[in-house]
């Protein structure tokens, strides 16, 4: 367990030292979302209807942008190989990387989402729920995305390929989360949406680290 926190701390330290890594996806999130009113028009009603979908799609894309770098530097300097050779279970170490990835990309997205919600005219009472769906949903994005990153590790042009592999798998999260926000804005109960999202989170938490670890093993063979 100690090694787990050690890994998380190391990755966070690395992220803190290279600011672009985690800052760029966040800026991307803001810019993409603010493009929609410009493309569609500033009408409040239209923006309100598309807002949950737009914010969530931007969050998916922002996460995708950051996935390429999850294993990149570790692969290049050889520490990934050392990680797999170490006596600790690889899936635990992968989980540490996922946690660090979520802390550096998922959490900033959650913290910034109220600003975007205001941009998109989401009712103020719905903003906490939007943050809650992001809180439940972005870890799933990191978990599933890491499988894609592990499968494409070592490929020169992994970036676009990851999106091909991972985006179809993101569809359930997008559906449940954005419709939760839309339903709440209409004043209906969203318990079902949230429990489904929670279920997906635990399911991904159980299986994704194992899959990502074996994908890394295959890639490093």
């Amino acid at each position, binding site marked *: 367990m100690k090694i787990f926190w050690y890994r998380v701390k190391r990755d966070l330290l690395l992220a803190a030292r290279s600011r672009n890594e985690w800052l760029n996806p966040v800026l991307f999130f803001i810019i993409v979302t603010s493009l929609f009113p410009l493309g569609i028009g500033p009408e409040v009603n239209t923006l309100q209807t598309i807002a949950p979908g737009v914010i969530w799609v931007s969050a998916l894309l922002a996460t995708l942008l950051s996935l390429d770098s999850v294993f990149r530097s570790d692969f290049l300097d050889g520490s990934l190989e050392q990680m797999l050779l170490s006596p600790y279970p690889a899936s635990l170490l992968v989980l540490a990387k996922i946690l660090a990835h979520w802390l550096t990309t998922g959490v900033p997205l959650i913290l910034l989402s109220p600003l975007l919600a205001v941009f998109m005219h989401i009712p103020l009472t719905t903003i906490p729920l939007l943050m809650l769906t992001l809180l439940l949903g972005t870890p799933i994005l990191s978990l599933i995305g890491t499988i894609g990153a592990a499968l494409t590790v070592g490929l020169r042009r992994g970036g676009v390929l990851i999106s091909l592999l991972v985006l179809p798998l993101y569809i359930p999260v997008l559906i449940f989360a954005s*419709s939760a926000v839309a339903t709440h804005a209409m004043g209906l109960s969203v318990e079902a949406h949230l429990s489904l999202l929670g279920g997906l989170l635990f399911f991904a938490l159980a299986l994704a680290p194992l899959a990502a670890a074996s994908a890394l093993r295959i890639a490093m063979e």
Partner: protein
Amino acid sequence: MFAWFHKLTAPKNFYRFAGIINPWIGTICLILILSGLYLGLFKAPPDYQQGESYRIIFVHVPAAWMSMFVYMVMACSAFMTLVWRYKLAGIITEASAAIGASFTFLALATGSLWGKPMWGTWWVWDARLTSELILLFLYLGYIALNSAIENKKTATRASALLVLVGVINIPIIHYSVEWWYTLHQPATVTKMDKPSIHLDMLIPLLLMALGFTFFYAFTLLLKVRTLLIMREQKSKWVQELLEHGKS
């Protein structure tokens, strides 16, 4: 039993075996599809609601079935690749992908053609069409990953893992799409309840489905034989084969 299986799946023996049975499979496929098309297009009565345009189901439905069946075959062979490292299983997964993607595309294209007279538009975000579209994305993702990795051995195993991840996700995606559809169901789409299908339509449909299965087997074996030769280029049996023409 197991030793026999092992012998058959050795690349050299399977190459020969596939070469012997494939003409038979092709012939059966041709008979099934021709008779299915004849019965379906000329003999089956027109539908009382949809007239003649319903006849596209004789291609659409078998193609949609095959799109799912092929993915299941890929999932089984991917499992065998990862667990037992069967060479042949990896080749079967790889050879199936393009065929499965083609079936999925065919199902989408015929569904869209059918949608024009039925719904008045080429595309409707219907639950089944949407799931089929996502299935096509999964196939294309597999093909992209498999061709992006240069080392063939790594490519086979990495993309096999992707198939397994996909097969776990398929039911989740399917039900979430269905749920999404019931939430946003547009009022203009008339949902057809399942009518009990007439025997004159059912028989050609089943013939076509069987014919498509044999077509899959036929193209699969063709492709597997080609891939086997490509993979085993350096082995003795391929060298001999290339020198003497026939094995």
